Structure formats: structure tokens, C-alpha cells
């Protein structure tokens, strides 16, 4: 069991030791050698995390279509590969060979950069997630804020898509995306505050370690309230139904990515699922004890919890209709923000009288 649990950290250590031995023997100065090893290891970890992320997105696309089909009493994709599992691969190939169309009066540079800027923050947020015991690609002591800050950059990408396309539906979509993101960011950040208070740390690694006896979602009532508010605002932040007004296809064609085709559209698609996966991993880390769990390897526990949240999100998407735009804003400012503020005060009171964790 220990072998499985430490599988990835052991692989990391082995490659690290191998490189150190290789460069140490090559007669380089020790500081130069260690700097080069650190750079190579960073590159390897970054590549692995990125590939893992893309793999996750491909499975999520397949899973979403299968879950949607199940909810609507259909079969779903079943032609390509076993159970249609290779369908996302076929989709990717299709996107690569599609023509890339740029509208005549579009702002070319902004139109080109928008999908990149939408995807980059999602990848950046990926590098701080503790996927298992000792398996965080990078750990700063302010990682919680890092996640919040990079996700706020993604909004700019959606806006650029809306503006750069020179299309009124795209502009409306971009506008909705910006308004929604700045509104729902506030309850999302405010629900993280009680967790920081409970853990006494902003490091995701330490937050997970503090939850070894009690998951924060079970610190009643603040943990449960925080979890529900966080999950709702996270779904809104990543624009998933019932919060998908920015691309509401029955109202504004496809919103901010109306004028995108080929792999540029593919990048938006990728960013959307990347973001969805990340908010679920963060919710797992903050509220569901991260990789903590008995018997199974830590990274497996982490994936199980994350996929449970993802399935919940897909279920919600298939079940609920879309909000109206004004209802959406009202809900954020008049319901979620006050609740999360009260939640912070409650946590303070709770910590005055009890010792948690």
C-alpha cells in the first residue's frame, strides 16, 4: 500500500537523484548543477501536470456526454471506441482540421489572443493543487489567494473574445461573463476566509493536513454553509448551467465564442473544462479533506472526491434551467454575499469558544 501511496513521489525522487548524479559527475559547479536540475525537474513536472490536465479534460467531455445522455434517457456517444470513449479524441482531430475563421472587421490581435488568455490562468491554477500526499507541484504559503487571483485573469480572456469578434452576440456574451465573474468572485473569496480561519494557514498543503481528523465540511454549521456557497459560486464562476448566461445558446447564439472555430474554439472548450475541474479540486481540498482518507492511496481518494463533485455539477447542469440575468445578479449580491459574510462572523465566534481540528 505504501508503494502505491508514494508511487509518484518516488518516481519524482528517482528522476531527481538520477539527474543530480548525472550532472554532479559531469564536473559542473554544484550551484549551477542544482539550478539546472531544478529547472529540468520543474519542466518535467509542468509537462506532466499539463498532460494530466488535458487527459482529464478529454475524460470529462466523454463523461459529460454520457451523463447527459443517461439523464435524458439516451445512449450517448457509442460509436468510437469502447462505450464511445474515443469520441473526445475524434472531436479533437475534427477541431484541428477545421478552418480557422476570423470575421472581416474583427480586431485580429485581440481575437487571436483571447483563447490563449482564457486558457493560461486555468493551467496556472493547476500547478498548486495538492493531488496527493506530498504531490503538490508547487507550494507557496499563500496558495489559496493564488487560485483566486489567476482565475480572475480568465475573465479578461472572455471579455477579449467578446470585444475582438466584432459581433453583437459575442459582445453581449462577453459583457455577461464579466458581470457574472466579478459578482460571483466575491462570495467565492469570502467563503474561503472561514477555512483560512479554521486552518490558520493559507497553504493548501497545510489546510489538507489539518483536516486529518475532521473534514471542514463537517464543522457545522460554518463548513457546510461555506461548502454550499462555494460550490454554487464556483459553478457560476466557470459558467456552467444554470449559470451559463455568457453563452446562453437560446438567447445569444453562443455568446463570447460565437465567432470562433477550429482550434481557437477548442481552446475555449479546453479552458472551460479545465476550470471546472480546478474548482472541483479546490472545493475538495478546502472542504472535503483533500487527499485524506483510509485504505486507498491518497491520490486515488483525491480523484474520487473530485469526480464526485464533478458528477454533482453535471447532474445539476442537466436538471436545472438557466437563470435570468437579473435574477443571477440579485442572487449573488442579495443572497450569497450576505450569507458568506455572516459565515465569517459565525466562524470567528465558533473559534472563540471551541478549538477545531
Amino acid at each position, binding site marked *: 500500500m505504501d508503494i502505491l501511496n508514494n508511487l509518484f513521489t518516488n518516481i519524482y525522487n528517482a528522476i531527481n537523484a538520477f539527474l543530480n548524479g548525472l550532472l554532479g559527475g559531469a564536473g559542473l559547479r554544484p*550551484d*549551477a548543477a542544482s*539550478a539546472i536540475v531544478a529547472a529540468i525537474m520543474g519542466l518535467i513536472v509542468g509537462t506532466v501536470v499539463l498532460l494530466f490536465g488535458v487527459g482529464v479534460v478529454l475524460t470529462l467531455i466523454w463523461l459529460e456526454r454520457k451523463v447527459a445522455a443517461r439523464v435524458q434517457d439516451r445512449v450517448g456517444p457509442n460509436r468510437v471506441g469502447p462505450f464511445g470513449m474515443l469520441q473526445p479524441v475524434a472531436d479533437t482531430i475534427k477541431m484541428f482540421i477545421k478552418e480557422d475563421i476570423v470575421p472581416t472587421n474583427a*480586431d485580429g490581435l*485581440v481575437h487571436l489572443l483571447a483563447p490563449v488568455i482564457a486558457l493560461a490562468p486555468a493551467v496556472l491554477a493547476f500547478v498548486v493543487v495538492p493531488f496527493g500526499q506530498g504531490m503538490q507541484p508547487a507550494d*507557496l*504559503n*499563500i496558495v489559496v*489567494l*493564488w487560485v*483566486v*487571483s*489567476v482565475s*480572475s*485573469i480568465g*475573465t*479578461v480572456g472572455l*471579455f*477579449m473574445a467578446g*470585444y475582438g469578434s466584432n459581433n453583437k452576440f459575442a*459582445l453581449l456574451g*462577453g*459583457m455577461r461573463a*464579466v*458581470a457574472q*465573474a*466579478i459578482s460571483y*468572485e466575491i462570495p467565492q473569496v469570502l467563503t474561503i476566509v472561514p477555512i483560512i480561519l479554521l486552518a490558520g494557514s*493559507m497553504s493548501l498543503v497545510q489546510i489538507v493536513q489539518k483536516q486529518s481528523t475532521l473534514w471542514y465540511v463537517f464543522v457545522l454549521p460554518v463548513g457546510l454553509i461555506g461548502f454550499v456557497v462555494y460550490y454554487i459560486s464556483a459553478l457560476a464562476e466557470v459558467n456552467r448551467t444554470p449559470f451559463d448566461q455568457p453563452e446562453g445558446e437560446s438567447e445569444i447564439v453562443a455568446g463570447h465564442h460565437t465567432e470562433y472555430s477550429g482550434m481557437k474554439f477548442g481552446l475555449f472548450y479546453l479552458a472551460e473544462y479545465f476550470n471546472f475541474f480546478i474548482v472541483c479540486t479546490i472545493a475538495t481540498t478546502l472542504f472535503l479533506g483533500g487527499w485524506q482518507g483510509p485504505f486507498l492511496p491518497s491520490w486515488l481518494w483525491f480523484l474520487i472526491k473530485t469526480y464526485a463533485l464533478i458528477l454533482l455539477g453535471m447532474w445539476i447542469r442537466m436538471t436545472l434551467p438557466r437563470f435570468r440575468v437579473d435574477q443571477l*445578479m*440579485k442572487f449573488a*449580491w*442579495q443572497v450569497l*454575499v450576505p450569507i458568506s459574510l455572516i459565515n465569517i462572523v459565525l466562524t470567528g465566534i465558533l473559534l472563540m469558544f471551541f478549538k477545531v481540528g
Partner: protein
Amino acid sequence: MLTSQFLTYVAFFVLSAIALIGAFLAVTLRNLVRAALGLILSFMGVAGIYFVLEAEFVAIVQVIIYIGAISVLILFAIMLTRGLMTSAASTQNSQWIGAAFVGMLMFAVLFFVAITTNWPLAQPHTISDLIPRLGADLVTTYLLPFEAVSLLLLAALIGAIVIARE
């Protein structure tokens, strides 16, 4: 040590270049949206410089506040104002002489302060409990400004909710 110092210098100059290019674009571009995007590039460069200086907290707050909130708000205001998005506004009006004078004065003051102050060099990696200490200072030494700012932000928040109600 030498290698990491060299890398720090490279990172500093690249990030400074990004910040300056962004600032230059922000004041020279005639298209308002592109100018705002240039401003975001400049903020990114500054945040990167904070990271190089090992002030991670300031860097991240810079990204959250200046990019996530202020720039997005600027973009939003541009979008909501009729005709601003398509027309190429002039980058200067009759007040440019006064503005240039004030800007130059500001630069002179900062430059003077920068070269006359004896900057103490911090030892690298001396402060590990930065965030707890910052929090403690905010509610002890700097309590009054902290409370004043909190009150202001609370008033703004309540104001936003009241406006949203109407």
C-alpha cells in the same frame, strides 16, 4: 548563488520591459479597449516584479485587485459607454501640458527619493511567517487605518446592494 542571482536579474529586466511596454501601449494606443488591455499587461509585469522580490502576497493582491477588479471594471465601463468601443479617441486634449508638467514633477520627486534614500538590503529568506505577522500588525499597530478602510469598503458594498435593489 551566482547562477540564481543572474537569473533574478534576467527575470527582473524581462518583467520590467513587460511593465513598461504595457504602460506605453496604455497611453499611446488610440483604441480604448486595446489601451485598457495594455494597462493589464503593465499590471502583470509589476506583479511579476513583486514575485521576483519575494513579496508573493503583494504580487497576488496586485493581480486580484488591479487585474481582477479594477481593470475588469474599466473594461466594463468602456463596454457600457455608447460609441467608445469603435471610435478611435484622441490620446490628448488641451490639458496635456499641465498633465505632462505634473507627471514630470512626480517623476522628479520619486527619482530624488530613490537615489537619496539609503536602501537597506534584506537578507534573503529571513521572513517565513510573513502573512501571520502582516495580519497581527494590521489589528495592532495599524488598527485605525485598517478599520477606516474596512468601513469605507463596507459602505461601498452596502451601497452596491442598495443600488442593485432598485
